[in-house]
C-alpha cells in the first residue's frame, strides 16, 4: 500500500497537466494509467512500417497560452503549427474560407466566447463550495440557436455556412439546423490547437516529461477497479491486481459515466447523482481512417488543395447532406454522403511518412456506435473504408491507385482503446441542456468538485475539458490544492 496525497486516474492531457501542477506544489502525486504508455488519445501510431499518424484526431482543443508557457511544452519538443485555413472540396470545385468573410469572423467570435466561458469557469474553481452556482454563460442566443441561423445572422453566404458547418461538425453527428447546434462553433471539430510535430504523441511525451521532472510517479498497465471511501470521503483507489493506493484526493479524467458508474457501486451513490449520470447522453460519431499512400497524386485536387491551404479539407458538400447524415446516424445507418475531413499531415511534417510517400488521415462523422443491423463486422468495416476512399477519389482523382495500406477505427474500437463510453471523443453529446447544466456540474457543488468528497473530475466530459486541453486538469489540481490546504482532518 503506497501513500500519496493525490491520485490521478488517466494519463491523458488533463491528467498529466494536473500531475505537473500538483507535483510542483509539493504534493505526492501518482498518475494511474491502464495503458502501457502515457497520453491516452494523444497517440502517434505507426500503422504501417514507416507511416505514422495521430491516431484519434490530428488536432485537440487548444491549450491556453499561459498553461502552455508554464508547462514549458515548446522546449520539451511539442511544437504546434496552427491550421487556420480550411478548404471545402466539391466535385464542382474547391474554395477556402476567406479570412475576412463573415464566416471566418464568426469563427473568431466563437473562439472569444469560448475563452470567456473558460475564464469564468476557471475563476470559480478556487472558491469554496457554494450553495448556488451562477451559470457563467455569456449569451443565451448561442445556446438556443442553430448553427445555420447563427451563420445567417452573421451574414454568411450559403456556401460559407455549409463550410462552417462542415468544419465545426467534423467527426461528429449533429444537425446544423437543429436549435442548439450553434454550440459546436464554440468547440469546433477542426481549427483547434493545430498539428503537432511528430503527431500528438510528441505532446504526450512532452507532458510526461514535465510531470516526471516535477516529481510525479506513474503506474502503467493496471486499471483502477474501485475507489474506496471512508467516512464519506475518498480514501484511495484499488487497482485491478488488488493493490491499493492511498490518496486524500482522487482526480478522475475518465468520462462522466465511467467515473461514477464503473468506479463505484451505484447503490452507494446519491440517487439524484445516479439519475443525472444515467441521463447524460453520449453521441459517438467519429471514425478514423489512416491511409498510407505511395505519394500524392499530381491531380489538381490534391496539389491544388495543398497549395491553397496545406491543411484541412472538408468533403461534405452542404447542410442538407449534414442533416441527412444526422438522420441516418440516429437510425443506426451510414449516410449517403459521408461527411469527411481529410488531411495530409506528412505534407507539413514529412517525418510521418517515408520520402516520396504520404500519410493521409480521414475523420468521418456521423458513424454510429452500433449499426441498425448489428455490430461492426470486418465486412462492414471494409465496406466503410471502400466507400470513404471512393468518396475521396471523386474529388481527388488518382488517389485510389496510390493506397498502400489503411487502418480504420470505428467507435467501438475507440471505446476499447481509450476507455471512453461509446467511443465518444467529446465525452458526451454537445447539446445545450448538457452543455449548460450537466457539464461541469450542478447539485450545488462546483466542478471540478463532485458530490463525493475528495473526488474531482477532469477530462472530456467536463466543460473546460471540452473547450480547451489541459485546462480541466489544471482546474482540478487547483481545486485539490485549495481543498487540501483547507482540510482540517487528517487521514491516519
Amino acid at each position, binding site marked *: 500500500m503506497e501513500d500519496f496525497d493525490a491520485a490521478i486516474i488517466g494519463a491523458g492531457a488533463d491528467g498529466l497537466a494536473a500531475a505537473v501542477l500538483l507535483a510542483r506544489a509539493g504534493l505526492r502525486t501518482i498518475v494511474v494509467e491502464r495503458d502501457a504508455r502515457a497520453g491516452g488519445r494523444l497517440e502517434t501510431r505507426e500503422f504501417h512500417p514507416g507511416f505514422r499518424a495521430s491516431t484519434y484526431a490530428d488536432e485537440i482543443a487548444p491549450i491556453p497560452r499561459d498553461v502552455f508557457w508554464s508547462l514549458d511544452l515548446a522546449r520539451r519538443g511539442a511544437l504546434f503549427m496552427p491550421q487556420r485555413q480550411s478548404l471545402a472540396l466539391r466535385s464542382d470545385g474547391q474554395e477556402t474560407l476567406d479570412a475576412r468573410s463573415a464566416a471566418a469572423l464568426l469563427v473568431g467570435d466563437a473562439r472569444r466566447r469560448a475563452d470567456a466561458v473558460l475564464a469564468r469557469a476557471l475563476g470559480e474553481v478556487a472558491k469554496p463550495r457554494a450553495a448556488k452556482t451562477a451559470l457563467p454563460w455569456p449569451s443565451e442566443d448561442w*445556446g*438556443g440557436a442553430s448553427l445555420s441561423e447563427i451563420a445567417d445572422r452573421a451574414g454568411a453566404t450559403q456556401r460559407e455556412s455549409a463550410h462552417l458547418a462542415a468544419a465545426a461538425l467534423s467527426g461528429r453527428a449533429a444537425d446544423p439546423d*437543429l*436549435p*442548439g447546434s450553434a454550440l459546436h462553433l464554440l468547440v469546433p471539430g477542426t481549427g483547434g490547437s493545430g498539428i503537432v510535430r511528430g503527431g500528438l504523441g510528441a505532446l504526450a511525451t512532452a507532458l510526461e516529461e514535465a510531470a516526471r521532472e516535477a516529481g510525479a510517479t506513474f503506474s502503467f498497465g493496471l486499471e483502477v477497479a474501485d475507489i474506496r471511501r471512508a467516512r464519506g470521503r475518498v480514501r484511495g483507489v484499488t487497482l485491478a491486481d488488488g493493490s491499493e493506493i492511498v490518496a486524500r484526493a482522487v482526480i478522475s479524467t475518465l468520462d462522466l459515466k465511467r467515473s461514477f458508474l464503473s468506479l463505484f457501486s451505484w447503490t452507494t451513490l446519491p440517487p439524484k447523482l445516479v439519475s443525472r449520470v444515467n441521463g447524460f447522453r453520449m453521441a459517438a460519431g467519429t471514425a478514423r481512417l489512416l491511409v498510407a499512400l505511395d505519394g500524392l497524386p499530381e491531380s489538381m485536387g490534391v496539389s491544388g488543395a495543398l497549395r491553397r491551404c496545406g491543411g484541412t479539407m472538408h468533403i461534405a458538400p452542404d447542410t442538407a447532406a449534414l*442533416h441527412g447524415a444526422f438522420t441516418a446516424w440516429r437510425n443506426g445507418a451510414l449516410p449517403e454522403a459521408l461527411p469527411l475531413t481529410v488531411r495530409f499531415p506528412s505534407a507539413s511534417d514529412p517525418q510521418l511518412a517515408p520520402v516520396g510517400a504520404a500519410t493521409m488521415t480521414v475523420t468521418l462523422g456521423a458513424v454510429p456506435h452500433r449499426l441498425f443491423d448489428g455490430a461492426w463486422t470486418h465486412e462492414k468495416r471494409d465496406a466503410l473504408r471502400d466507400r470513404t476512399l471512393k468518396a475521396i477519389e471523386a474529388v481527388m482523382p488518382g488517389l485510389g491507385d496510390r493506397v498502400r495500406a489503411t487502418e480504420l477505427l470505428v467507435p467501438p474500437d475507440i471505446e476499447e482503446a481509450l476507455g471512453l463510453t461509446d467511443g465518444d471523443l467529446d465525452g458526451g453529446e454537445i*447539446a*445545450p441542456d448538457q*452543455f*449548460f447544466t450537466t457539464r461541469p456540474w450542478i447539485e450545488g457543488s462546483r466542478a471540478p468538485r463532485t458530490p463525493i468528497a475528495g473526488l474531482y473530475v477532469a477530462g472530456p466530459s467536463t466543460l473546460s475539458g471540452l473547450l480547451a486541453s489541459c485546462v480541466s486538469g489544471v482546474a482540478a489540481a487547483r481545486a485539490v490544492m485549495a481543498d487540501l490546504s483547507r482540510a482540517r482532518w487528517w487521514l491516519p
Partner: protein
Amino acid sequence: MVAPVNWDAIVIGGGASGLIAAATLAKARQKVLLLEARAVFGGTSETPASGETISLSGLDPALALDQHVIEELKLSLRYAKRDLPLVALRPEGHHIVVGRDAFRTARNLGWFSARDAQAWPRFRREVWALARAMRKVWWPQGIAPIAVPEHDAIEAMKYAGALAWLGRWFESDALKAALAFDATEDGAAVNAPPSALILLWRLAQEMSGLQAAQSIIDDGNGGLAGATLRAALAAGAELRNGAVVTKILVRDGRASGVRLDSGETIEAHLVLSSLSRSVTRALAPTGAFGLSRSEVARAPSIGTARILLSFDREPRFGDSVPAAARFVVADRVDSLISARDAALAGQIPDELVFDAVPVTPRAPTAQHALLLRIRPVPLAPSGGWDAARAVLAARAVSALGTFDRSLKSAVVALRIATPEDLAREYGKGSSAATVERLLQPAGARIATPLDNLLLCGSDAEPVSEVAGRAARLAARRAIALAGAARKGVVR
C-alpha cells in the same frame, strides 16, 4: 384620394385577435377602424354561416384564451366540452388517459411503467407549479419587462429539448411521445430547445377556469368569432370587410396609415397588425424594420394541416376511453422526429402524428365529427398539395382506423385545410419557435421598430395560438400612446 386623419387606430386583420384589439380600443373611446380582407370576419375561428352545410368551423378549437379578455369584453362564450382529457391511442390496446385526477392517471400509466406511475403525481405537482410561476412572464398585465423567475429548473428547460426534459421524469416511450406532441408547435423539434419551454407554456394556460385545460367552445351563436365580432360592434368599432391592405404608410419615422388595394389611403395615429411579423414587415416600406439580417424572423417550412372528419356514428376507440377527449396519435418518440424530418424534406410523413378533438358535426347525416390537427406537414410538399392532399387524407383515416376497425366506412364527409389553404384563405403565417420568442417580455413581442405600429395577432404570442393576450396588451399600449399624444408628451 386622401381621407382626413380622423382615425385614432387602424387594426389590420379581422380575426379573433384583431376583433379583440378593436373592441378593447373602442371601449376606451378610441376611433377604431378594422380592416378585413375577406368577406367574413373571424379568421380561422369563423363559424359557418347558417345554411352552409360544412366548413372548417373553429379551426383552432384548443385555445389559450385570456380570462381577462373574456371578462373585460364580456364575451359570451359557451363551452361545448370542458377539460378534455388527453387520450393517447395506443396500438397495444391499452390507451394512455391523462386526466385531471393525478392518481387515476398514475394507475393508468402503471400498465406502461411502474416508475412512471410513481413519478406522475410528483410531475403533475411540480411541473404545474413551475408553469404557474412562469405566468408572470407569459400572462403579463402590462408591457413592463418582468424577470424570468430564478429557478434552476427553468434555466435547464431553456436549453433542453422536450424529450430530454421528459426523459428525466419518465421512461416509457409511449408516454413521452404522447406528452411531447404539444411541444411541436411552430415547427419546434422535440429533441432540441425550445420545445421543453413550449410544453411548459401549454401547461401554463388556463381555459374555463382550469389550468392546462383543453376546452372546445360551442360554436352555436357564432362561437369565438361571433362573440368577438359582437363585442367589437357593441363597443363602437368600425368594421370594414373586403379591404385588402397592400401597404403600411410611414411618415417621419412613424406609421401614418395604410393603403388598400383599391388605392384608397386611410390615415390614423396608430396601426395595429394582427398579421404575422414577417407579413407586417413586408407591408411596411423597405428597410422600415431595419436592414440587419438578424431582423429576419425565420418562418418554419413545416406547418399544421387540419382535417375535418364527419362520421355517421360515434368513433369507438376502446371501452375505457372517455367519449369526449383529445386524442393523440403518436406511436413512438421516434415518430415525432422522423415525421419532422420527412416534412422538412417535403414529404408527407409515413407515420402521421396528430391530435383529434370532437367538434359539432355539420354535414348532413353526420352524427359525430373529429377535427384532426396533423403536425408537422410540409408547407409545400414536393409534387404540390393536389397530390399530397389525397395521400394525407388516406393516411389519416387509416391511422384512426387502426383503433376503430370499421371507422373508415363510417366516414360521411372529409374536408382538408392544408397550410397552403390557410395561407391563401386567411393569410395565416407564423414565425418559428425560439427561446427568445418564448421568454422575451410582452413589450418586445408586440413592438416593432416603428413606435406606433404594434403587433396584436397570434404571432405576437410566445406560441402561435389565438390567446387574445397580445391583442389586449397591444390595445392597451396603443391607448397609452394615444393618451400621451393628446397631452402633447414628446416620445
